[in-house]
């Protein structure tokens, strides 16, 4: 089967004014099948967010190109949505208005977008906070608004940049289970960046381990655990073996000075 998303070798160098250029990605390539759940783990600053932005269509690589469903990516598209690492909520909009942003930009009427947005707000556990402004929310709540906003456009591909990093452990577990359900029910393709080996192993079909900057693929680890995965599975020896495998692959890339 042809992969749904694929790229040639991607290279991207940032050239900030008055500073040395930084090559964030070098010959990074990726293939994703439709409906697959893939995680990326890698040291901080190795280019994970950069890559997601390329896939989202916000950054143009210096070399290489990506295609999705056989079409070249030249800019943002409705079939992709991102949960941003730094939330990116509009401070002048309430929770409801932030969640409705995508449908609103597509020209959907209030009547059609409001019930769906409410559903998603309930789903991420923010019922009762519809009228709050972002500065009135905790970090974890903001992150959940970001998740609801991405889901509101009902994208085929969900790009998630450390979407649960700001959540407490319990909420995180809940949101992970919730995400797996959404993914399973709506057959979405998910590309998920995380620093948590446990999270990557628990959620994914495959885990891509990246090298230190300039980032490229070090190894792809297939997670052959049966689904649906329950909480107990995390305590199984197989699960621990996988975690250890990911850790051993990743650890040489980590640089404590960064």
């Amino acid at each position, binding site marked *: 089967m042809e992969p749904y998303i694929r790229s040639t070798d991607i290279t991207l160098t940032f050239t900030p004014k008055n500073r040395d250029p930084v090559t964030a990605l070098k010959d990074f390539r990726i293939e994703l099948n439709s409906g697959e759940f893939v995680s990326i783990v890698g040291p901080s600053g190795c280019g994970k967010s950069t890559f997601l*932005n390329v896939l*989202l*269509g*916000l950054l143009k690589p210096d070399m290489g190109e990506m295609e999705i469903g056989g079409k070249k990516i030249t800019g*943002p*598209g*409705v079939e*992709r*949505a*991102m949960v*941003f690492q*730094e939330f*990116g909520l*509009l*401070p*002048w*909009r309430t929770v409801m208005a932030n969640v409705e*942003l*995508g449908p609103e*930009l*597509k020209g959907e009427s209030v009547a059609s977008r409001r019930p769906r947005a409410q559903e998603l707000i309930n789903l991420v556990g923010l019922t009762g906070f519809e009228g709050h*402004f*972002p*500065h*009135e929310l905790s970090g974890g709540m903001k992150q959940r608004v970001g998740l609801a*906003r991405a889901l509101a*456009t009902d994208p085929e591909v969900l790009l998630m940049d450390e979407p649960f990093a700001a959540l407490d452990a319990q909420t995180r577990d809940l949101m992970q289970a919730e995400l797996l359900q959404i993914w399973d029910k709506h057959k979405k393709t998910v590309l998920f960046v995380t620093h948590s080996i446990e999270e990557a192993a628990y959620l994914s079909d495959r885990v891509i381990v990246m090298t230190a900057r300039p980032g490229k693929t070090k190894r792809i680890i297939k997670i052959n655990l049966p689904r649906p995965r329950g909480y107990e599975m995390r305590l199984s020896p197989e699960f621990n073996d996988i975690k250890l495998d990911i850790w051993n692959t990743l650890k040489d890339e980590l640089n404590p000075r960064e």
Partner: protein
Amino acid sequence: MRFGVLSERSVRFLLGAGAVTGFFLVWEFLLTFVFTFNPFFITKPSLMWDATGDLILSGELWKDLYISGTPFVFGFAAAVVVGIPLGVVMGWRRRVAFALDPFLTALYASPLVALAPLLIVMFGVGIKGKTILIFLLAVFPFIFNAFAGVRSVDTLLINVVRSLGGKERDLYFKVILPSTLPYIVAGARIAIGRGIVGIIVGEFYAASEGIGHALIWFGDMYQLGHMFVCILVLMIVAVIFTVGLRKAELAIAPWRTQETR
């Protein structure tokens, strides 16, 4: 915070009002009992009180305020309508900024009031000349502040809206304008002050009515009580505008005013 039985609001009001009253009392006291009073040199609150009655009863004050207020409103409105879009577009489109920058910087830096005689010659002492002068003085804070506001827009938010299918228009109305609003309000504060300068300077030359003209005329006549009342009225007008602006900001930008409190 609470002070005894009173809320912070009423304490703030009482202290403010008390200080102003005290200021006028001390002024009156000093000129009545301490220094010799020379009415050609300075005035005192009791004389200003008489002058206020005089100006109000004769209807002159309202007439002058109306005469001066009309060009102020027109000039200020034009400054908003021209200044904000111009500043926003300059901030977002670098090339527009590069092209316009020399003109704007030169005009902003130079003393525009020096143009007043020229404008009066060109457009007359009536409403037209004054409107244009007030517009010229008030437009620059809007342009430059809107410009600065746009330069400071968070690119992440731009990316968010673009990634969700936002077009150029959406960027303007859903990101750039709202995040520039606080800068525009700050610009409006400055513009109010400059606009009032415009009123006075505009009526300095050859005008025969208006609050600025009255101010100068009473000065020439050594009617310092009346003159001070005119000054006071201009101050009050400026304060009303500034407070109104704060209230308007509260109404249209609740996220911000809550943040800073």
